């Protein structure tokens, strides 16, 4: 984790605080967005709008797990909404920040989304910012 991610984390925690009323100081990098913090879909929209406005980037919920699909574009990442063996490999490589003990072949995309944490969100913001710089 470098300084830039830490700075982004500070902003993200404040945005979550403002949108959902969860105290910024109580938010941790490893907290899952939907399970631990119990952020619902409308609050998530609000958070993404705030992030887009703050950083002048475009970001969607699907961006959070899109990168793993891109990494394994030769092989199917999921079949009928369930993660394949190749999908698992890709997740292990691209999303080391999530609880990998819960990642397994046959898990659903919804189950994967539930593992996405604050760190994942900060990472995607950093990636988008880096893309914007290029």
């Amino acid at each position, binding site marked *: 984790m470098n300084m830039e991610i830490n700075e982004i984390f500070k902003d993200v925690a404040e945005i979550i605080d403002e949108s959902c009323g969860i105290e910024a100081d109580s938010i941790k990098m490893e907290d899952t967005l939907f399970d631990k913090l119990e952020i619902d879909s*409308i*609050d998530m*929209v*609000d958070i993404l*709008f*705030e992030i887009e*406005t703050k950083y002048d980037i475009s970001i969607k919920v699907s961006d959070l797990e899109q990168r793993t699909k891109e990494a394994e574009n030769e092989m199917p990442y999921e079949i009928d909404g369930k993660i394949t063996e190749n999908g698992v490999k890709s997740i292990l490589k691209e999303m080391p920040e999530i609880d990998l003990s819960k990642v397994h072949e046959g898990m659903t995309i919804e189950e994967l989304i539930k593992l996405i944490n604050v760190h994942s969100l900060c990472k995607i913001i950093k990636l988008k910012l880096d893309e914007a710089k290029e």
Partner: protein
Amino acid sequence: MYLNFNHKYVLVTGATGEIGRQICLDFILEGALVIPLYRNDCKKEKFLNWLKENGANLDSVFPYKADLTKRDDIKSAINRILKEHNKIDVLVNCAGYAVEMPFLMLEDNQIDDQININYLAPMIVMKEVLRSMFINKGGNIVNISSATATKFGRGVSVYGSAKAGLERFTKIIAQEVGKKGIRVNSVSPGVIDTDMSQDLIARGKNNIKEFTALRKYGTPIDVSKAVLFLASDDTAGFITGHVLNVDGGIFL
């Protein structure tokens, strides 16, 4: 009663129509800054003259041109509005378009335009405006529906069903965005004495009045007052997802 619209930005689609212009006028007279969306330049000039003649200060009016049948046009207009004014506090989706004839006689473009203007355009406008309302932590939306959404469907198959869809959409969005302090309601006018209704009034002779409890047609002012009531947090702060019939009791 104080409606508290001072310095509030109010976006009105279909502003140059008889109901739309009345809504604009009433908001201006209540201290709001009105952003009318219009499509036709000639109608815009007539609209501005009418506002002036009726006591509006045109310094409170910021017209923008947009073709509601074109998604990109709508998005671009709203982006420009938000860049120049930063926020939209109230949105009134008032644009409407009806072709009254049996369904099987409608041309394809007449079907498309009615769906686009009455159903799709409010969705697109709302999607763009809601983003700003989320950022500003609040806002109010009033969609103008029609009595034909629930009754009197003969000859208005596409218009009536599009308005029915808009009413349902209003309720669902009200549920979705309520927790962000945004209220979404509809006003459903009955027969309003405007140019758009003259054919209907002529065909119905006195029958329509006889079916109406108050034995008269509505006016644009009747609709406008209902819109301002729903759009104000001071008068309707606990009302959302509601369809307010302004129809003189035509359903009773």
